[in-house]
């Protein structure tokens, strides 16, 4: 909890997607507890640049926990030890002076490493492209109360819409399964009147795409839920399992 910390990092370094990577040790001094994890990496990168070395590549964008770009396995935990936080929201005050920190990229066959800590997460975009949208144009927001949606239903849809697609669920899953992501992205649409229409097609094609991309099978181990920075529950997976079973029994018309 001290203000000025010295940390010993073990960072995964990999030149490109084709080369074989390995861990490298770095010592970072004068780390303030008020820094975010990414600011600490920035500081290390500035030092590396000054020494003429290749800085550590990592993904980041908004740095306020809403874009889903940052992704690091920190000491074996997706997005680090904080609950419901992304890597950029993780403050260094969670660590102590002299701590050793292992930093790894997401590991999944469907998320190949591009360089260092940056991985290619376009597999999630491909799942969305398989049906995570509404095809019909609904125009402007409808007149209030013209389309009745229960409060609990709207809330649950909103909880699922909070998914930022960071990939922590698949990264934390022992099977590298993308079920929590796919469940969130089907649930947010299937529950609401506009999305219900295409729900059968959506859930079938998104699950099919998820399997094709090489993600593992869900075995209900709940690590995704614990790792999700947006607190999306495995209840969404149960809901998608139920919906998928329904689509196997229901006819189209």
């Amino acid at each position, binding site marked *: 909890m001290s203000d000025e910390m010295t940390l010993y990092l073990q960072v995964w370094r990999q030149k490109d997607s084709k080369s074989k990577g390995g861990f490298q040790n770095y010592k970072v001094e004068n780390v303030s507890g008020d820094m975010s994890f990414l600011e600490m990496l920035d500081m290390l990168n500035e030092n590396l640049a000054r020494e003429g070395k290749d800085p550590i590549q990592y993904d980041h964008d908004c740095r306020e926990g809403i874009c889903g770009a940052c992704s690091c396995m920190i000491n*074996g935990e997706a997005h680090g030890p904080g609950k419901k936080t992304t890597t950029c929201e993780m403050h260094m005050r969670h660590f102590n002076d002299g701590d050793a920190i292992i930093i790894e990229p997401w*590991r999944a066959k469907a998320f190949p490493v591009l360089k260092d800590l940056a991985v290619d997460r376009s597999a999630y975009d491909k799942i969305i492209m398989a049906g995570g949208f509404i095809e019909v144009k609904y125009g402007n927001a409808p007149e209030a109360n013209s389309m009745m949606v229960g409060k609990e239903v709207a809330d649950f849809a909103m909880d699922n819409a909070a998914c930022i697609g960071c990939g922590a669920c698949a990264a934390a899953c022992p099977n590298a*399964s993308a079920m929590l992501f796919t469940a969130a992205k089907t649930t947010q649409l299937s529950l609401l009147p506009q999305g219900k229409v295409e729900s059968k097609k959506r859930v079938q094609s998104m699950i099919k795409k998820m399997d094709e991309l*090489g*993600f593992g*099978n869900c*075995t209900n181990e709940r*690590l995704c839920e614990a790792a999700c920075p947006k607190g999306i529950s495995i209840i969404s*997976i149960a809901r998608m399992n139920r919906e998928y079973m329904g689509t196997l029994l229901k006819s189209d018309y």
Partner: protein
Amino acid sequence: MSSVFKKYIVAASGLFLTLFVLGHSAGNSLMLFSSEMFNRYGHALITNPLIYLIEFVVVAIFLTHVFFALKVTFENWSARGDVGYKKRVNKDSNLISFAASTMPYTGAVIFIFLVLHIVQFKYGAYYEITYAGTIMRDLHRLLLEYFPAPLNAIGYIIAMVVLTFHVLHGLWSITQTFGVNRSMYNKLFRNIALGFALFVLVIYVTFPVWGYLQGVK
């Protein structure tokens, strides 16, 4: 076949096998009351012509469970990619998550146990006994020869502890896979699974302990 459909198969066959574990425990419990009751129950089972059909169905469902569980496990191992994590921790570690992460291993132990179990009992030493003029197999005598050997009793107890963990995750997992789970029932289902697993543990550990004590007397 989609990943979710494979889950349905593993879960449905698992539910059936759970019911088998329950039914088997009821039949076995007869050994605690009297050797005649136990032997007569066994005789009634094997002399019923339907037994071949039932045996076939149970074995088929068991092998389906094993086949799809293995398929899913191997797919999951390869889904991580060529390089695994150097360090990975579970943020929400508990008894049920331990049971979940060890499913393939507990399953393998149960498989080995079942093979031995069938060889040692169904195809084990054959004794005969006569009740009211009917000659039948005296399986009860075999029990009383088997369990007093400490290694047999301990091995049986270890296998049952392993089964408890397998059933613990399996039963809760069924509610999730079939989409029965809702946030308001989540805790309830976990407690039911915990209670059922505990029941399986207590009843199945009773048999070897009882058998061992019979031998000591």
